[in-house]
């Protein structure tokens, strides 16, 4: 376990660098799937090797080696494993922090989703669409069984009939394709391994693009969708005086300070540009990173197994 064990800790950096360009260049549905799966695999692989490094550190303590059911020899472990004790301890501390953060985040997200589903069920009327009296131009989908779409009267007034259809098609796509689950999964992975944060930020963008493209398919005109998104954003900005979402909360949660244009102009620009096609090269690149990460983690696991075997052997021949 010399080299392979450290690689899965470095691969998330590669994925983080590639995330945003991939989000812009791949079709949004593919990008969402790819980045979500990548985040899960990379988070799992990096947690796994942290765990293995921690184990190799811990069996150096003779007491712990004795306590372990196989009665491993601490000396043998020290001889055959190059990872130092401090690396093992650091890995253990990182893994504990990651597991705790991920556990808390998972609990919190499940509770929020349950609260959202309860709200969706309690919204008035039998229809999917709920119109609320509010001058602020606001529209969102709230997941549930079934999910609901909330639109303010301010937003309805800002758009014409065809634009209402586009807005609804966009929000329906969010619900139909369970975009909140992609976002939840990728954010959870990013909590377990903060290096994956750019993947999570990109997926929150690509699900919007996915919904935009779905709306464009329903309406049959991408340009109209671009104009509707732009018009709605400008209307929302104008009505901000009556905001119903505290801007302080949005500052903390919704947006991470990032260089360059925000999501809305990027969505509009993407819709005005020709549709994206699958690009085999970047796709192959990220799949190669995932495969390498998996292989390295498996290799490291195999090494660890051998090491433990050796240590066991050493203990029985003492």
């Amino acid at each position, binding site marked *: 376990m010399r080299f392979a064990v450290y690689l899965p800790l470095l691969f998330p950096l590669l994925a983080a660098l590639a995330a945003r360009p991939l989000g812009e260049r791949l079709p949004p549905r593919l990008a969402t799937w790819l980045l979500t799966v990548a985040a899960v695999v990379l988070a799992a692989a990096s947690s796994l090797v942290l765990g293995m490094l921690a184990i190799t550190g811990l069996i150096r303590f003779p007491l712990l080696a004795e306590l372990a059911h196989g009665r491993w020899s601490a000396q043998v472990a020290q001889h055959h494993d190059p990872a130092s004790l401090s690396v093992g301890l650091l890995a253990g501390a990182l893994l504990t922090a990651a597991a705790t953060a991920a556990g808390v985040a998972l609990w919190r997200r499940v509770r929020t989703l349950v609260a*959202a589903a309860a709200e969706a069920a309690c*919204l008035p009327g039998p229809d999917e669409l709920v119109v609320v009296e509010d001058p602020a131009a606001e529209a969102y989908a709230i997941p549930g069984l079934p999910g609901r779409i909330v639109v303010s009267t301010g937003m309805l007034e800002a758009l014409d009939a065809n634009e209402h259809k586009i807005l609804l098609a966009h929000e329906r796509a969010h619900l139909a394709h369970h975009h*909140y689950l992609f976002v939840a999964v990728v954010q959870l992975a990013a909590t377990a391994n903060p290096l994956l944060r750019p993947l999570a930020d990109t997926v929150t963008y690509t699900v919007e693009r996915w919904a935009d493209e779905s709306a464009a398919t329903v309406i049959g005109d991408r340009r109209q969708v671009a104009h509707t998104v732009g018009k709605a954003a400008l209307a929302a900005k104008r009505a901000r005086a009556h905001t119903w979402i505290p801007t302080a909360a*949005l500052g903390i*949660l*919704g*947006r991470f300070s990032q260089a360059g244009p925000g999501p*809305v102009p990027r969505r509009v620009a993407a819709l005005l540009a020709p549709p994206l096609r699958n690009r085999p090269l970047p796709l192959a690149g990220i799949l190669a990173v995932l495969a390498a990460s998996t292989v390295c983690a498996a290799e490291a696991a195999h090494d660890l197994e051998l090491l433990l075997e050796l240590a066991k052997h050493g203990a029985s021949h003492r």
Partner: protein
Amino acid sequence: MAAHEPTAPKGGRAKGELEAEVLDALQHAAPEALSPGEVKDRLGGGLSYSTVVTALSRLYAKGLLKRSLRGRAFAYTPVADDSGLAARQMRKVLDDRPDREAVLTRFVDDLSADDEQLLRKLLDTGQ
């Protein structure tokens, strides 16, 4: 007076839960206004008068109820129709959640000043 001492809600009912039940009772009675005593009778379950008054005052403070003087006590009605009330409640419940933004998918995000300029340019050239 002993009867007006605040008592803990019976049956492990959480504060928010009691408020929701009170609101529900008032909505069912609407448009008729209810006094705290009437709310207490409708809810049953061994609630004390003062617990009901506390819940009503809290809902009133949140702007969910309006009240008028009837005899010596206030009588309460929900402030809006169903949808207005639901919208307000929803804002309150989900606003408290730190990851609310990640669960609700908004049609458009907020624009910065730069974004707004860029967007106008895009829409102009895209005509």
